[in-house]
């Protein structure tokens, strides 16, 4: 393999953004025909920037791209596609009300406003493509009604339909369930068999280990190295990625849980469309315990969290915190009673992006006496508080007055965790606490949740990341269509059992 010329080479790519940020400092990567190359790096390492340059979405400040030995320069994604390079983005670019067929042929309808679209021909061509690859998507259902995994396959099909032979996948598994990931990998292997070349962007070590042939690791805009996957270990890759050894295992000493802090009884909650999103849940979280809820996203987890955090109406049932009925209480009362909430949507709920770190550091506790001076807010005290959070949680921020949107995702999340912990809660809800967060911050946040548990707090962890739930929970439930398929201990259950429950098969009855 080493001897052949790469099908694609990006040489000495430099990208400096107008604000002076050096996203790439001379990156060279080589991709060989028919291989799956992993592009591994933390959030903000420059993976996506590099691929956007390849796909013609960004112009490099310096550097060259060679396709089959010939220098190329793409002015737009359409240009890249015409040259056989396709990209599937982390955030999908589908028209939600269109069906798969319409989405796939979008932009290829032919010229002229009134020219006829040859739908039947397109359908035939697509069907043939799907048969070859041995994966099917429903062509006539509006994509908004399809699961994310299927939407992603539509995105892939969209590219293949355009005859690309180099496919870039940007964090393709971020939104998928474990089963969907397995299915995706099957598709990728099939594509590889057919001679397609794939660039797989990820920060998940296991996935890179499983699917790729070679891995190029990028850190802070530079290539750290390229290794053959068969010669690599997760530990080696982790070290390359973060520049130090990452404790991939979380230290979790055994602990006897204490009294019941939080209890939910026969809880029913409606979703936005009036459907029963949560259907009769009953569970409890004890002091010194992490209770995890796993499951495919969209099975009522969000509605459950919002209902217990005072943000959504409870239709039926009761919620108790430290023995007090808190059903229907407002967030402010709940926080004053010792609840804290790391929300799943940090940019739309957890933070006010335009406001400063300081202002964000007191959200949900701004009424506390410690921050006021008569009827004025004591900004000096707030600043001290914000500085304390930044220091304790190693949040890297330009300053307390900087708008929160200038922080990276991982640091934004650390700021939220820091703020919520500073409320000194007895019960903390952690919803998707490490989603879209870099490895180092993930490790930090996970260890912190364990620390809270060790300090006898009750933690409710809701996460679509199965590994996270397995690793952190003392007990865990698997949620499916608003119900628990079972409550189990992570070390007494196999991955297959969990997979089944996530797919809606009830676990062994627990008495």
């Amino acid at each position, binding site marked *: 393999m080493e001897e052949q010329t790469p099908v694609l080479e990006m040489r000495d790519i430099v990208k*400096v953004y*107008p604000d002076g940020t050096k996203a790439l400092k001379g990156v060279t990567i080589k991709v060989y025909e028919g291989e799956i190359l992993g592009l591994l790096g933390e959030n903000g390492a420059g993976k996506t920037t590099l691929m956007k340059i390849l796909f013609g979405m960004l112009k490099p400040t310096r550097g060259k791209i060679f396709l089959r030995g010939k220098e190329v320069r793409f002015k737009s994604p359409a240009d890249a596609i015409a040259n056989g390079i396709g990209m599937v983005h982390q955030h999908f670019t589908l028209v939600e009300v269109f069906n798969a067929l319409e989405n796939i042929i979008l932009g290829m309808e032919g010229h002229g406003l009134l020219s006829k679209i040859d739908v039947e021909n397109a359908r035939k061509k697509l069907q043939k493509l799907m048969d070859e690859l041995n994966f099917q998507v429903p062509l006539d259902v509006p994509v908004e009604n399809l699961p994310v995994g299927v939407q992603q396959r539509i995105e892939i099909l969209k590219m293949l339909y355009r005859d690309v032979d180099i496919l870039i996948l940007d964090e393709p598994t971020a939104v998928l369930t474990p089963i969907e990931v397995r299915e995706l990998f099957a598709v990728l292997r099939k594509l590889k068999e057919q001679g397609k070349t794939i660039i797989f962007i990820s920060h998940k070590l296991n996935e890179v280990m499983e699917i790729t042939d070679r891995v190029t690791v990028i850190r802070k805009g530079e290539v750290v190295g390229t290794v053959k996957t068969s010669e690599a270990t997760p530990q080696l890759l982790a070290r390359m990625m973060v520049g130090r050894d990452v404790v991939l295992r979380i230290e979790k000493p055994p602990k006897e849980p204490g009294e019941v802090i939080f209890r939910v009884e026969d809880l029913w909650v409606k979703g936005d469309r009036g459907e029963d999103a949560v259907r009769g849940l009953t569970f409890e979280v004890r002091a010194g315990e992490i209770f995890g809820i796993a499951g495919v996203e969209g099975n009522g987890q969000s509605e459950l969290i919002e209902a217990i*955090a005072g*943000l959504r109406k409870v239709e039926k049932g009761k919620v108790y915190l430290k023995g007090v009925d808190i059903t229907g209480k*407002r*967030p*402010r009362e709940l*926080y004053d009673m010792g609840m804290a*909430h790391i*929300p799943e*949507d940090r940019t*739309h*709920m*957890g*933070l*006010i*992006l*335009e*406001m400063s770190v300081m*202002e964000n550091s*007191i*959200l*949900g506790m*701004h*009424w506390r006496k410690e921050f*006021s001076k008569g*009827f*004025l*807010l004591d*900004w000096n005290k707030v600043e001290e508080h914000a500085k304390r959070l930044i220091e304790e949680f190693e949040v890297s921020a330009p*300053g307390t*007055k900087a708008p929160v949107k200038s922080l990276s995702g991982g640091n934004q999340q650390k700021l939220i965790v820091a703020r919520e912990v500073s409320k000194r809660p007895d019960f903390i809800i952690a919803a998707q606490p490490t989603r879209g967060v870099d490895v180092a911050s993930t490790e930090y946040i996970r260890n912190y949740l364990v620390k809270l548990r060790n300090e006898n707090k009750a933690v409710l962890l809701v996460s679509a990341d199965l590994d996270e739930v397995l690793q952190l929970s003392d007990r865990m439930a698997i949620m499916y269509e608003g119900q628990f398929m079972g409550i189990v201990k992570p070390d007494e259950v196999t991955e297959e059992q969990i997979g089944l429950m996530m797919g809606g098969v009830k676990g062994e009855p627990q008495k």
Partner: protein
Amino acid sequence: MNLKNELRGYAKPVAESVLAILIGVLVGALVLWFSGYSPLEAYYWLIVGSLASTDGIAETLAKSAPLILTAITFAIGARTGLFNVGAEGTVYFGAMAAIIVTQYLQNPIAGLLAGLLIGALWALPAAVLKVYRGVHEVISTIMFNWIAFFLVSWLAVSVYYNPKDPNSTLPIPPSARLPLLIKGTSLSWAFIVAILSAIIVFIVMWHTKLGYELRTSGQNPRAAEYGGINPKRSAIWSFVIGGMTAGLAGAGLVMGTPPSYAITQGLANVHGYGFDGIGVSLVGRNHPLGIIFAGILFGALSAGATAMQQHAHVPLEMIKVIEGIIIIAVAVPGLLDLFARPFRRGEA
């Protein structure tokens, strides 16, 4: 250190507004030129009329007072995520309330309080409709402006008319008028009231819990709710405080503007301030302190316009054209970036 950081935050919006003003002046010059007037002569008299004499300055500041107050109404709304254009009608009510109350309580404080209170009350219907029934505030406040116009017109013509002068309402009794700051001009305490209001609103919005809650609700209502803030309560407060300043604007207008100290026929002398305030607020970047400067600028344009008409024979309306250009220039997002980019490219 703190102050320096804070000032840096203000640098960009200030620069953007200054740039917009320059564009307004330049494009205005072109319009004047094409219309057959001498831009130099026009601007000369504009400046002389507004800034070159004590009288001019007094007139500038006097004109700015109601604009500052109605601009604040809009700014508080904008900061809370509301597009409150109800200042216009509230000004009429504030003026009428001051006239009515001072007939009985002949004291300036009573008059101002009347304007303040009626402003708060008149804001409530739109607030309640918004919060509990989801009626969009633009629709409701525009409608309420018309209700206010006809209601106050009726009061002016049929109830509180001046028996000695059918063209105006009863005047504010002399003992309830706002004292003049400079004798022989129309600059009264109304200006001080406007400045103080701007400062108080600044403190409320940036240094109290209430202001924090209002701004949070405006930026991100979901985050506000999550943060234990009731966005509905924020909206109501926003309407009420905004109503107060617009009410004050109306009261100040009749209590502090010689010689009539009354509402004139067709509400002519209290008309238009609410809508002009929107432009002032935009140029002042919806910030109370920026609004003070923008208000004075618009006051100067309006004060200088008279001299411009008298000496350069440029019609008064031309000033509205210049104001309009300034506002449009402010509204162009990223205006400054547009101008700064060619220079930055040179650096890289």
